[in-house]
């Protein structure tokens, strides 16, 4: 779970709270079961955009679930893609 907390002891959210909540989400993605350092979370206006390539659909779903928890009440846009596992259709000729 997130150990940072999203509010000051006074109960009021810190100024610039959304940036810190996104930072906490990134910490949680890296430290948790996913060890996900490749997904990017960025503040875009009042929303948060998730981008990057993840190893599996399970990872993508977990990231969305965690984002929903950490960023409750914030609109989250997801543009995460799952890594392509097909063989290449050509080779590069190195001269």
């Amino acid at each position, binding site marked *: 779970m997130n150990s940072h907390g999203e509010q000051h002891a006074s109960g009021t959210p810190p100024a610039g709270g959304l940036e810190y909540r996104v930072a906490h989400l990134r910490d949680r993605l890296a430290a948790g079961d996913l060890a996900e350092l490749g997904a990017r979370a960025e503040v875009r206006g009042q929303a948060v955009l998730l981008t990057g*390539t993840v190893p599996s659909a399970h990872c993508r779903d977990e990231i969305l679930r965690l984002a929903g928890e950490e960023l409750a009440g914030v609109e989250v846009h997801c543009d995460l893609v799952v890594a392509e596992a097909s063989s290449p259709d050509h080779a590069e000729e190195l001269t």
Partner: protein
Amino acid sequence: MIRVAAVGDIHLGPESQGTLRPAFETLPECADLLLLAGDLTRHGTPEEARVVAREIEGLAVPVVAVLGNHDHHDERPKEVTAILQDAGARVLEGESTVVTCGGARVGVAGTKGFGGGFVGRSAGEFGEPIMKEFVRYSRRCADALRMSLEELAEQGCDVRIALTHFSPVADTLAGEPLEIYPFLGTYLLAEAIDTAGADFAVHGHAHAGSEHGMTAGGVKVRNVAQPVIGRAFHIYHLPVRERAAAARTTAG
């Protein structure tokens, strides 16, 4: 011509089993060897390493690997290495290996490498002990890479490849935030490659980077992180006879 297949950053976990195996089984048709550029697991646990092992064991092409930072997270890199070796992979850390492909001797020198940044924007061996150790560790990786490449030259390899997880150049980081470049690679690796000489360099780690780059000394570098190449692996054709002929022409 040597056909090199390469991929890094496959980040396999328990639910990933079988994801890459179908593509890997096509390797004998299109490649002479497979290079794995680190971050093969998510946390570097033996359980995850066994997932990787099952994806590669019994492949009809030699597999040469380095570990990545994720493969160190559980602090059991020796166990991860042993599991991959049991599956037939040659796992390099400051070492080299020679693969024979159709009569040509292909040498691969490998290290995980580390960060530190690039010329003019790099960390220095100065200040707090932890900062000095950061840079010294990176330097040790690079020194081991240089010596491994030099060993391969002494062994008369027809082609020499540098395999790392961290990037030797900034070119292949294009797309990543500039602020994190020092965590993605170090020029020390490129300096090692250019000092010892190599025909090709392959790395991973930079998921949002780009594929193509080159060292200051003119060695082609490819970032084969799976999110970058968008495939199970990429294939690179390295000329052998042509290069030998060119060397003779130059010498003559």
